[in-house]
């Protein structure tokens, strides 16, 4: 904890994002039904020297605004004894097929898929919302504009997310499918994956305890619970890869319930079999809940009222879902991929429209690799699944932006808007 304060000294200069009066109206496509007030607030301003917003640029600009590289994959992480231990053991796995290596690679690779941006989002929300005047000076990282506790929270968010990803990187040795690799390697890899994930989880428990805010601990623990639940939702193959559920005809679908629960587990009524709700439930549990609850927690730390905290939760949730829609669409732009997510939105909508296609999914019960991706790819392109997904993304972005509007105008808010623009489907 104290090490992270050291790095405050090493931060780069704050760069104010150039404000411009250009409104990025294409952020809201022709289909939003909401009236969004766009005139008095600054929208995503584009970096002066390049007219096309770029994800990496948006992220690195944003990082400067909140101080130093926010990812805990910084020196502190590398200096830890346990992680040195893990790295040593990971080396033994090189050359094997264990998914942990891929996870580790993804952690470091700087792409849209990486989770380094999660902590960043939390910090940006923290800065954008400001804090109430009662917070003592000592707790503020004045130059960066966030509280030390919020910084710790951002770290915790990343640790929890990483831990979940690492735990997802286990290999199920009970699978009846032959595992195309040395069983010893796989078991050893499982051991390392489990221990590393546990280490991260334990660390996040400690850091949360140090914040001395029990409501926060409860909130973030409920996020860990949600992540665990996500791995059980719906059908799975033998390696626990998710499969979409068979779409139910409209008559059989149960009425949906409201999702404003925060501490309680996500209600499952009306979820399975309904394309839109199942997609949303799955990704709220897997991503939205964590990001939403972290944003909410950051606002709680700053002393904001519960209404704003709820707004923060909604912001994080919608942002995560918009992000997920973006990732789902990515597979369908550019050349045909060898495989893609079977629980992505485009496929879900396509299956809903043409339930007979579900037979292709059945082939994947033992392993998702057995599915005929080519046939499904064609089916998706033929139908309007992509268009529906884009619409879905627009809706979530609109919801996120609406919350953003309620924050005071500042560079952090602009940076967040930039990030949202960068993940808009038009920039695929």
């Amino acid at each position, binding site marked *: 904890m104290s090490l992270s304060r050291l790095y405050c000294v090493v931060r780069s200069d704050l760069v104010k994002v150039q404000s411009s009066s250009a409104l990025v109206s294409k952020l809201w496509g022709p289909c939003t039904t909401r009236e969004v007030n766009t005139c008095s607030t600054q929208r995503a301003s584009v970096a002066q020297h390049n007219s096309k917003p770029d994800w990496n640029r948006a992220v690195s600009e944003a990082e400067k605004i909140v101080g130093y590289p926010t990812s805990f994959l910084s020196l502190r992480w590398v200096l830890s004894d*346990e992680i040195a*231990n893990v790295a040593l*053991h990971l080396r033994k796995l090189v050359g094997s097929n264990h998914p942990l290596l891929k996870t580790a690679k993804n952690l470091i690779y700087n792409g849209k898929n990486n989770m380094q941006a999660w902590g960043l989002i939390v910090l940006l929300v923290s800065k954008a919302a400001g804090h109430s005047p009662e917070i003592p000076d000592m707790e503020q990282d004045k130059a960066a504009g966030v509280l030390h506790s919020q910084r710790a929270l951002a770290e915790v968010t990343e640790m929890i997310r990483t*831990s*979940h990803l690492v*735990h*997802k990187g*286990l*290999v*199920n*040795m*009970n*699978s009846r499918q032959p595992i195309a690799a040395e069983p010893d390697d796989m*078991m050893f890899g*499982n*051991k390392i994956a*489990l*221990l590393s*994930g*546990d*280490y991260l*989880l*334990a*660390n996040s*428990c*400690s850091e*949360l*305890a*140090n914040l*001395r805010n*029990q*409501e*926060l*601990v*409860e909130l973030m*623990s*409920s996020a*860990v*619970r949600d*992540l*665990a*639940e996500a*791995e*059980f*939702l719906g059908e*799975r193959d*033998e*390696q*626990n890869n998710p499969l979409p559920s068979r779409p139910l005809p409209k008559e059989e679908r149960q009425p949906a319930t409201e999702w404003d629960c925060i*501490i309680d*587990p*996500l*209600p*499952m009524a009306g979820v399975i079999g309904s394309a839109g709700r199942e997609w949303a439930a799955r990704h709220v549990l897997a991503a939205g809940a964590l990001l939403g609850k972290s944003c909410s927690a950051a606002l709680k730390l700053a002393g904001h009222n519960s209404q704003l905290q709820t707004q923060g939760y909604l912001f994080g949730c919608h942002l995560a879902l918009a992000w997920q829609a973006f990732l789902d669409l990515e597979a369908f732009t550019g050349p045909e991929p060898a495989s893609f997510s079977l629980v992505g939105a485009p496929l879900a909508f396509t299956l809903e429209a043409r339930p007979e296609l579900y037979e292709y999914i059945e082939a994947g019960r033992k392993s998702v690799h057995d599915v005929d991706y080519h046939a499904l790819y064609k089916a998706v392109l033929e139908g309007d699944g992509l268009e529906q997904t884009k619409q879905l993304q627009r809706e979530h972005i609109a919801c996120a932006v609406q919350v953003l509007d309620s924050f005071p105008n500042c560079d952090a808010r602009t940076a967040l808007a930039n990030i949202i623009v960068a993940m808009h489907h038009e920039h695929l």
Partner: protein
Amino acid sequence: MLVWCVCYVVHIVKRFVAVVAMACLSSSRLCARVQDKLLCQFGHKVRKQTVFVKLKPPGPSPLRIFGKTCQRVSTCGPTCGTGGINAAATSGLVRRMASSLQSTSTGSLPDYGTQIVDPYRLLEDDLNGIYEDIRSELERNTNQPELNTIATYYFDGQGKALRPMVAILMARAVNYHVYGENSALLPSQRQVAMISEMIHSASLIHDDVIDQSDFRRGKPSVNVLWNHKKVAMAGDFILAVASMMIARLRSDDVTLVLSQVVTDLVQGEFMQLGSKETENERFAHYLTKTYRKTASLIANSVKAVALLSGADESTSELAFQYGRNLGLSFQLVDDLLDFVSSAHAMGKPTAADLKLGLATAPVLFACEKYPELNPMIMRRFQEPGDVQKAYELVHKSRGLEQTRFLARKHGAEAARLAADLADSPYQKGLVVTTDLVLNRIK
């Protein structure tokens, strides 16, 4: 012969009366207590080894035994019933077992100073329903049925429930120490007992995946039955729910203390991955690892209950040290039992530590006499024949004896610390527990 029987029965009835007079006990326990004082009908003296049998929740599963064979006691059951004591007691006895511990004196009227104190029975009402409550808390926290099934698998009441028992025992003892006779168990303290069992189970679940174990508590381990990824997630789920319960206690200090446990557990596991070169380093390494993996949970949960009680710092520290010594003693006995017990009695396979490449106390002690164990330790007993050879050498050496000695030392230290608390049945229970831990056979 008949006269003898009658006299005997009269004797029993007299005892019956005497025992009834002293404390409010349920009828089923009464029968058992009578058994305590007397010998079985067959005159089988209950020997020095503590016979200690735990209560089990109603159900078809086999009775848990924490001590000696149940046979002797069960044969007492029906005959005890025919001895004239009410039938309800008999049926109660069939389901619950007597516990008896060697007492130092045979005072005629029981008083807590010399009387047999059975902590599990003492806390029967508090412990009753601990597992049900844990299960319902887990169930309340998920809408995914399979997650619920996996998560509640080890909460079927078949475990020893040592950790909750010690937590509640310490809670009551400290409450008595601070507030006197009219102290009650706080709901928050009972929550800590549940939390400690949940954290323990979560770590067991992850351990099973790591160690690829086959059996635990007499049934297939959780990793045998389910997808490993789901099992890992179930472990995380239990930990998350336990964290939520900790947070609901709304105590900063308790949260800090209990979150330390999780860190220690993981660090202990990491320590197990590595190994040390020299013998001296190895033993220190082993003790630290043992503290982190076992004793830390017990120590910190009893410290937490002491904090919740409002005890001062020295009392909390006393509780912590008690838990630490008890935990160390417990683990040393566990390591010992791995070499001496049979798989049937333990409910899990034996020589498991050697097969996992772990050098525990008996092996480390045996190294002194048989230095050929050193290279075997360094290569983690990987070569064929290593496990067998090491097993034999340990038995030939004084390693087992030395381990037991060390366990006794820690047990004695724990008992000494407990003696500093105000006199109460619970405080006696704490002392008795150190004995239980030492003399268990599984």
